[in-house]
């Protein structure tokens, strides 16, 4: 009997593969749309089984190269959850699109890749997950075949992403050459004293680290590997931008947490300060650039770069004795996943009626599309870190992790992050000001598609619920952080 732990993965794979052929059933007089609902069913089964493993039947287990610990389950839940939001929101967008069935199939397969990425404790499997996540997203970005911008976005994304994959393979081969293993558990134990036993290989380890940083960095939206993000997010359909901004990015973070904090955590090289600098640069550049944007999707893209900067803090400050930062980052991943997915979905809702590439069309949106505007307001306040919304608590824990770190630059990193957080209100507040305080050129009320507003309300409720009672999520992320650092047989 196949182990139960595989149920989420199998569900994603099976429903991802049957959704495209099921799409052939549509048409005729029966206005049947089996593909989207099969896709959503697959996601819900996966999400339900993961919740069941966390709440009822939690047992850390390792199945070969896959590792099912709380970290996997928690991140898996976040990734599948964001994909579910994307799938639900896409219901209206894909209606009548000939590529509807493949759209959902690709979405599920990409999600499968993300979950494998979070679960793998072997570098080869990690690479498989990476490609499984990436390849469907290229096609999804270009799903509007006749749209030049969409194709351009897909092309840019594809070239950079393929390069990052190549770098990852190279890094993996270097690590294999050093340690003779691709298993992260073995790598961790071999790297402990490799600097002493084989001093000559240390430079190769450093090169591998750099390649890993660049490879993951492209997907994680780390400055200076962020160039593709604004273009790709602007060109892709907004729902797919949501997937790229939340799911794909968080999966890359999950893999980076596994590889750096667990796998290479024992390697005696100071990569912590590298991440600290990257974190500072990323959050500052993201926020400054976001302030100057005239296009809403580009603003969201830069804000997601800034948020990546906050998450990078965890890589900079997490040591076996200080897991608070990692716990904060895991919690922030959950909140970020909800918030970012929902803001892109809000952008999609607006894009049905107004050009989202122009911020002036947001003037007076509070009267024209009240639900969407209210949703964006709450989500933006949460992204900026206004309590008692969820983003505040995860950021506070993350920044306290930086303050708690054994490194002397910890407090500086924390103050940089807090100042950035205060600064980010400049553009979040600016959009809110446009929506509620500025007068529109045309004050007519616009229809708001139900498929989008439903998701927005769901996200708003989650934002409040997690923010008002954060305790279960905080303790869960703390356990997830400790489970990442423990060895499971």
């Amino acid at each position, binding site marked *: 009997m196949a182990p139960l732990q595989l149920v989420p993965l199998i569900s994603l794979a099976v429903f991802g593969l049957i959704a495209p052929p099921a799409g052939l059933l549509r048409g005729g007089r029966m206005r049947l749309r089996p593909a989207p609902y099969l896709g959503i069913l697959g996601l819900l089964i996966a999400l339900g089984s993961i919740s069941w493993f966390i709440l009822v039947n939690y047992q850390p287990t390792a199945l070969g190269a896959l590792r099912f610990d709380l970290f996997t389950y928690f991140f898996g839940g976040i990734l599948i959850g964001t994909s579910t939001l994307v799938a639900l929101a896409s219901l209206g967008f894909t209606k009548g699109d000939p590529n509807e069935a493949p759209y959902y199939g690709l979405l599920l397969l990409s999600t499968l890749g993300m979950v494998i990425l979070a679960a793998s404790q072997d570098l080869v499997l990690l690479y498989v997950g990476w490609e499984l996540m990436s390849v469907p997203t290229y096609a999804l970005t270009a799903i509007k075949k006749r749209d030049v911008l969409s194709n351009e976005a897909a092309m840019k994304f594809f070239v950079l992403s393929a390069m990052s994959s190549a770098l990852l393979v190279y890094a993996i081969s270097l690590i294999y050459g050093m340690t003779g293993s691709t298993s992260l558990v073995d790598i961790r134990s071999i790297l402990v004293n490799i600097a002493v036993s084989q001093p000559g290989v240390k430079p190769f380890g450093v090169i591998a680290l750099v390649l890993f940083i660049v490879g993951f960095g492209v997907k994680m939206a780390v400055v200076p590997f962020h160039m593709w993000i604004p273009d790709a997010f602007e060109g892709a359909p907004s729902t797919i931008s949501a997937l790229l901004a939340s799911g794909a990015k968080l999966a890359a973070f999950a893999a980076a947490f596994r590889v750096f904090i667990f796998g290479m955590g024992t390697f005696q090289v100071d990569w912590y300060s590298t991440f600290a600098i990257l974190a500072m640069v990323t959050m500052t550049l993201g926020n400054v650039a976001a302030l100057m944007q005239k296009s809403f999707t580009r603003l969201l893209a830069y804000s997601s770069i800034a948020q990546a900067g906050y998450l990078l803090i965890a890589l900079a400050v997490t040591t076996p004795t200080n897991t608070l930062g990692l716990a904060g980052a895991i919690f922030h991943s959950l909140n970020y996943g909800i918030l970012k997915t929902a803001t892109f979905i809000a952008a999609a809702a607006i894009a049905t009626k107004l050009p989202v590439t122009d911020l002036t069309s947001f003037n007076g949106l509070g009267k024209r599309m009240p639900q969407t505007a209210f949703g964006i307001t709450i989500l933006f306040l949460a992204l900026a870190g206004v309590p008692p919304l969820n983003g505040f608590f995860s950021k506070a824990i993350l920044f306290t992790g930086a303050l708690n770190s054994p490194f002397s630059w910890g407090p500086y990193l924390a*103050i940089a992050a807090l100042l950035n957080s205060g600064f980010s209100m400049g553009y979040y507040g600016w959009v809110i000001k446009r929506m509620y305080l500025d007068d529109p050129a045309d004050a007519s009320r616009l229809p708001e598609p139900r498929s989008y507003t439903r998701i927005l309300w769901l996200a708003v409720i989650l934002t409040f619920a997690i923010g008002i009672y954060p305790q279960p999520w905080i303790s869960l992320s*703390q356990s997830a952080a400790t489970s990442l650092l423990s060895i499971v047989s």
Partner: protein
Amino acid sequence: MLGILSIIVFLPVLMAIPTYILGKIKPKLARIVCIGTTTALFGLTMLTLVFYRYGSSTPAFQLVDTMPWAPSFGLNYIVGLDGISLPLLIISTFLSLLACAGSWDLINFQEPEYYALFLIFETGIIGVFSSLNLILFYVFWEIVLIPMFFFIGVWGGPRRRYAALKFLLFTYSASAVMLFGFLAVFAYTHTFDYISVDGSPTLMSQVSQMPMFIQLFASVTTFIGFAVKLPIVPFHTWLPDAHVEAPAPVSVLLAGLLLKMGGYGFIRYNLLLFSNAANTLWPYFAGIGLITMIYGATVALVQTDLKRMIAMTSINHMGFVLLGTFSRDIAGVSGAVFQMFNHALAIGILFLMSGYIHEHMGTRNINELGGLRGRMPLTATLLVFGSLAAMAIPGLSNFISEYLVIAGALTANPIFALAIIAPALTVGYFLWMLRRVVLTPATGPRNELHLHSLIILAAFLVPLFILGAYPGPMLDSIIRPTILRFLGGGP
């Protein structure tokens, strides 16, 4: 256990939802629900005066409610009252009631949203004054911000968008700096609780064991957060814009309550919690207070807009709070707390009156108003009394608090005798304003305010007169025992 204080904190925000929904059905219902809620809250606050135990042998914090909230990150829900927060709680609910009543005439569109935000604001402000956990405090602190942004931005004057965004950016950035101080404290003490819930060490005892530079650092960062709210001089530029653009009832809330958050923070955190740091930093803080007072008074002197003049007065008066707090003298600190109470009332009547006058006369320009004595005799009388309160004339309680602050400051250092310049200037510009506005010949027909407006305005003055004649209950029974407990025999 949740008791009366938690009800006071959360009743407004819970009532915000029915207010909005009923207001959508009929705008008038929103007003009625809001006035009903604020009245009930004021009644409940009076009830706390019954439950509160007076004297020196009582626990430091009373009516304490605790509940675990997110204990794995040191977050506990703790609210409680002492002699510093009780006067501010009373003034919060009283001023909210009057401001809500004052909104009846002055807010005429989007009422459901206005009154719902009003109640959210009230929860925030009460929460700030009663929370005893740093993060809980921060949560309420930020809750206040968002309604105020919309108040100014939606219901404000011609330059409201600029003023609202400026307000948001100033105060939000300052809060981020303040939060850093709180998180730094947590990194060393592993608790955010001001008082102990389960017998674990309290923040008070742990903070003094932190390395000195962290104490100084935490004190300075939190000071910046509070100072922007107060506001002190280099950070005050958001205030005149916000005040001038905000509708009058909102100005009452802004000057009467929101600025007090800064003063309360100084006393609760910079003076009492980071007391070691205060021993080093007090001359700078008190000096900033002195500069703020004199600067505010000087700038007020040259204003021609009545509302802008009152806004500058409030910078001047809040400087008293800062100076009194960091005199670290029993009289000075008691005076600072009492000054916050009195200033809220004095500035409340002036702002609301300026709103009514603007509504009736069509202008707020001091040079154009002229002849109020003939045109609005009762209003003019109230304006004179409000101005007397702001000038701190003996007989009104403002005199007592300003006297205590200056006396305390003189104990700390004779150089603070300079503080006397500020009240002198205040008397000067108020008398000049009264001469131009009230005592000039009437130029138009009689145009008196409605009776209910006059009653609302007069209500501000009642406590000022009562406490001016007999400040004992407030000063000796409520404020002084707490200050004595915290400061001991004096610095």
